[in-house]
């Protein structure tokens, strides 16, 4: 096993897929010479030239729409959208076009496009540069939504997303880019729609995404000292959602907590809770709990932002309450 960063894992996936398929190309702002805000695409220009990594002006609606058109006509664009807060600028092309084109052509079209975007709070970037908007896209039929938490998952899932014939929103938490992790040797992919059990446990099922997977794992260490063993599951893709793995775990533990950084109301946690309330109703020993940010804009000042974000302590306290 090698150890690489989340950033390098994404880059490896892009390079491998661009080498494998000449129709894969990258579009985005500051992606070529600079290599992106977080240097994820650094070096790709030298390797593939400017026709495969195309620098875009500030025209998010324009180049996301262009990605849809290019994908319809037999290429596989990977659109780099920087901040997920820019997604609203391109919403028409994502929601009205990418998601629906296959239906509009009666199944004769596909839109094999990936939109890579980074998200999340924690660095005083302010309320229009820190949001977690994944749930908006879960609510739009025709799209797939991926949110990895480890370098190995990021690489395998991005490779699958690029090969997928449907449009995929690929959410990368910006605080994960520098994180190191073990990665399998050689070629591999991870199919969309397969959750991963990050820690086995018997007492409470904790479903967590992106940064919250790490908060849950930190919480598990503390809870373990009290002989409480939580099972931490990362769904990895929200559409398709691996209900079976999630529900198998809930049926085993009898308790479910969902943790995400996005604000709670309308978040993916509510959907998973509703599924569990139906599928695992007879197995539940406690009310289903959710942890998410409050329904307020992401604040700017560090103490405010820190107070806003869901923390390990919230998970520990909630799990204790669920077992009391």
């Amino acid at each position, binding site marked *: 096993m090698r150890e690489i960063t989340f950033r390098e894992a994404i880059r490896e996936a892009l390079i491998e897929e661009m080498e494998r398929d000449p129709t894969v190309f990258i579009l985005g702002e500051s992606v070529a010479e600079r290599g992106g805000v977080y240097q994820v695409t650094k070096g790709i220009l030298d390797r593939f030239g400017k026709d495969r990594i195309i620098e875009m002006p500030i025209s998010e609606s324009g180049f996301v729409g262009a990605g849809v058109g290019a994908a319809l006509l037999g290429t596989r664009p990977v659109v780099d959208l920087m901040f997920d807060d820019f997604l609203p600028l391109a919403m028409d092309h994502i929601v009205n076009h990418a998601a629906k084109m296959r239906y509009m052509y009666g199944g004769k079209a596909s839109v094999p496009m990936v939109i890579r975007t980074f998200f999340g709070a924690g660095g005083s970037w302010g309320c229009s540069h820190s949001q977690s908007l994944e749930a908006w896209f879960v609510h739009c039929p025709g799209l797939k939504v991926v949110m990895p938490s480890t370098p190995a998952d990021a690489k395998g899932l991005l490779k699958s997303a690029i090969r997928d014939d449907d449009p995929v929103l690929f959410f990368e938490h910006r605080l994960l880019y520098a994180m190191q992790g073990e990665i399998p040797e050689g070629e591999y992919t991870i199919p969309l729609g397969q959750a991963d059990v990050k820690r086995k446990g018997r007492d409470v099922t904790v479903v967590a995404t992106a940064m919250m997977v790490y908060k849950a794992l930190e919480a598990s260490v503390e809870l373990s000292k009290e002989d409480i063993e939580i099972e931490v599951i990362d769904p990895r893709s929200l559409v*398709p959602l691996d209900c079976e793995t999630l529900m198998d775990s809930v049926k085993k533990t009898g308790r479910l907590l969902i943790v995400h950084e996005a604000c709670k109301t309308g978040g993916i946690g509510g959907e998973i809770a509703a599924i569990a309330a139906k599928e695992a109703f007879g197995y539940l020993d406690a009310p289903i709990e959710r942890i998410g940010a409050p329904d307020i804009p992401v604040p700017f000042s560090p103490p405010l932002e820190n107070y806003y974000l869901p923390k390990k302590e919230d998970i520990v306290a909630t799990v204790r309450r669920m077992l009391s």
Partner: protein
Amino acid sequence: MQKKDSKKKSKGGLKDADLIAMYRFMVLTREFEMRVAQIYSQKGLPELPHSCIGEEAIGVGSCYGLRKDDYVLPSLRGRSVILTKGVSPSILMAGIYGKVTGPSKGKWTAHHMGDFENGILAGSLIIGSQFPIAVGAGLAFKVKKTDQVCLCYFGDGASNRGDFHEGLNLAAILKLPVIFICENNLYAIDMHVERSMLIKDIALRAQGYGMPGKTIDGNDVLKVYHTVQEAVERARRGEGPTLIECKTYRLRPHCERYQEDRPKEELEYWWGQCPLKRFKECLFHRKILDNTKKQQIEAEVKEEMNRAVKFAEESPFPQPEEIFEDVYTHGVIKEGRLCVR
């Protein structure tokens, strides 16, 4: 529609047989739209018709001479584009009826249909959203190193959208083979173009992107043909996009059933400028068309339209459970959500 191989040559590379074929497409579009309006008023149709009557010369003139593998992205008034690009009137009519034999098997309205066989990109009913999609088609041709072109149609109203700006600028800086064709019919539903912008010609906007912009008589089918062909050749040579503004007028309301109050004198003036009438006069004058030939074409088109309506009426509707198909390429919709296992 590719050009005919007739020996008799006319000016600008169009042979007599081409001119007759173009005239036939204009008659077909007019007859198609009249039939749709008639059926709609008599018994209703799932699709609310947005007729292109009065604007037929733009679609016919711009698509005639395109290759089968060239693409078009029609505006909401795109019937002449769709028919000239080669879609069968029967399939198109079945789409308007919402039948399973239509272009999308009943999943989407036919006036924004897509069809890869005939090089037609689907539109979304979001006015002015087509520019970036057409730019993407041009980008795909560039990435795949082909010499195809994409024609992107839009009305005067759409040219006020932000995507017009983003799309045209992208096409220009990337030198993409996209031709932007404005069907300026003076009205965005009710708003006159003099109230929606302070410039006289939309083609002026091309200057802002460093691309050629031309304003032409959109009711002159041959003028449209030659202007578009010139832009197409330029695009195929890799010299980038062109904006062509075709001045025209819709002779029907924005859509059927829509009550409107455009001035009577204005309508009368533009009926005098009817593109079908003008092309007929031109062909009579050049002795390419006479009454016998004209009546023969009209009879053939009427017969073709009878077959189309019969096909649409006799075709079955899709089955309700087909709604779950054609959403994703793999997996099934189970309990209302995507399941891949």
